[in-house]
């Protein structure tokens, strides 16, 4: 018979197993944080970037690492768990130049 969640809370074996998983997960996170301080990301366009310079937590491939709080299942509320997008974006010429470069006339569905 499988255990219910309430039963698992009282099961010593399961609790130890669960705690071990939590420790392993935390160790994994700590290792990633330590790694970030010591390693670099090699970007084909931007060159070598120290991982520590990148705010979000990343591995050596530049992949963002999202760790969750084992208790809530949600992201840790830490600065390295956000991806920050700058609202600044390219600004374009408009007016006549816009129409000169881009063919914006309807030709078939007129």
């Amino acid at each position, binding site marked *: 018979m499988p255990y219910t969640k309430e039963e698992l809370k009282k099961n010593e074996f399961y609790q130890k197993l669960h705690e071990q998983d939590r420790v392993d997960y935390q160790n994994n996170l700590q290792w990633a944080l330590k790694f970030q301080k010591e390693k670099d990301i090699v970007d084909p366009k931007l060159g070598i970037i120290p991982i520590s310079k990148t705010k979000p937590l990343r591995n050596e491939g530049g992949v963002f690492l999202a760790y969750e709080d084992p208790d809530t299942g949600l992201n840790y509320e830490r600065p390295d768990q*956000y991806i920050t*997008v700058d609202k*600044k974006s390219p*600004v374009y*010429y408009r007016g006549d130049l816009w129409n*000169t470069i881009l063919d914006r006339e309807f030709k078939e*569905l007129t």
Partner: protein
Amino acid sequence: MPRYRTKLNDKDFKLLKKEGMGILGESGHLFPIFGNHIEDFVKFNVYGLDDIYLKSGISEDFENDDNNIKLKPGNDLRKVGFTRGDYKVKYFFYRRLAGADEIVLTKTVGDQSGVVHSGNPKFTGEPMGDFYVDDDGKVFQGNGPAGDGSEPSELDVKEYKFFIDKISANKKEVRLAPQSINLDKYKDEFSSLYTSDGVYKPVSGIGDFTDGGPTVSGEAKFNSADNTGFKFVTKDGTDPGFLKKYIGGTLEIENAFIVGYTNQVPTTEENPDWSLEDPIPPITIETNYPDGNATTGTPVTFTANRENGNIAPSQLSYYWDFGCGHQEFGEPEITHTYTINGNMNVSVVINSPNFVDTVILDNPLSISYSTDDSDSPTAPAPSSPLDGKIIYWDGDSSTQGTPQKHSGVAVTINTRFYVQSGHRRWITSGYNLGLLRELRGLDSDSDIDLYTDLMNTLPIGPQIDGLTITGAPTGLDEPITDGYLLGSLDDSGDDSGDDSGDDSGGDDSGDDDSGDDSGTQETFYTLSVGVKYNSASGNGYTPVSLPYTISNEGDPDHDIDAYIKIDGLNVGRSYNESYLAGETVDIEIVDDSFPTNLYGFVGWVGSGTSYDGTKTQVMSGNINLTAKIKIPI
């Protein structure tokens, strides 16, 4: 610099992107900044590492501040079911303009179909109506089947969206159409898609009565006669007025009326020195030869006199025509010495700031040759021991330069002259040279070479070409009296003459059987170069003269201009010049447009696209080139 995700291709992106970055929506049609509008949302797509699409979702816990948006990819992934693994996540930042990913239930009321019965009030603006679903999945009005067994009203299930009515054959155009949903809000949203900037109309109407009469909502006016500011006089309380989103938009004023005029009297004061200018008074021409007979070589004085005998006002302008082909500006009294005989019709054009008059000498002035005038037919024609000979230059320009065959054009060692009446007559072509040799029995061995200074002692006579070789008075036996002397050109002129075509012919190319005579008949071709702005799109060509200005809405104008460099010298926007056959000319088109580095040379008319505005042209015929300026694409 990272490449920003955009729907523009790389070339268009480069052309349209301004310097620097900006936050969209601070004003104008995108106002407000993303994240500050109730309809803003963030969508994300999840892909495997092999770029295969897996799932989409709406991000609900992103954080927004003035300059940044903080995303939590971990939460987003977990929300859509991805709890572990490696994924690619792409985020899209949207603002809902029309429609929604929602369902509405519609019904038919009377003769109106598509009336919304129930839907998300956030989008429909209508309260939700009761409905139920039967076992077959059909939807009906009400909370359940009627107890009396009456037939329930079935509802239509529709997506609160618009559909693609048609796709063009080239797959670049789509036509959207609304569904049969009879709801003003739904239709208005669809209409608003036509103008991304939105259209604002002030709330207008008659308001409360005051002492001065009723107030009129929506009334606006310019700040003053000389001010472009435009503002409301009265605005309804529910009217939001001009919002930031309308900055950069177009203001259209309907039913504008002129309600009065303001007379502005300019401030003037009379110039004390000003006086009404009189018309040109009656003027006659008188000469110091009242009998009307004068001779060459003797100065003749002409005087413009008023009726009272006084000389005409010197403040006026006098343009004299002496009847011999010579005209010049001068004073009311002027002197001219004639060199040819004949009856001279003398006149003067008199100009004042407001008037013009032409006065003619009453009777033509008769000019005869003076007895001591060397040009007189009665005087003996000059002669030379070389008369009847064909001469040519010895080619030594080291100390005395190079003689000229006519003004500004150097002779070459192949240039031939026929000496007649002490004048040298340039023989313009190999054909004429051969004809002359035939007529006069002159073979090439009898040609005489002269050094520069000696050749320069012979005045220039009329050239010998196909039309004049046998005719009088420039025929071969007529005396020549109206020649003129020409000095040498310096070494540079000498070089150009030698290099331009004399190398090939030796010393007697004029006798060449082929008829080619580069020494005596140098061919010139015309080079014409222009530069135009090509305003056509794609591969079309619509020339526009330079300079040309393109206005940009809210941005600095584009001033398109370019100039031509010929052999390194700026010659402006067009160029016409004659060149000796075989000569090479270096041409360069230089873009001088604003903004810099945006426009440039894109090719020559009639040729393919090229971005190299330099060209070395060999003159092998008349050349007509037009350069095209455009944004290189």
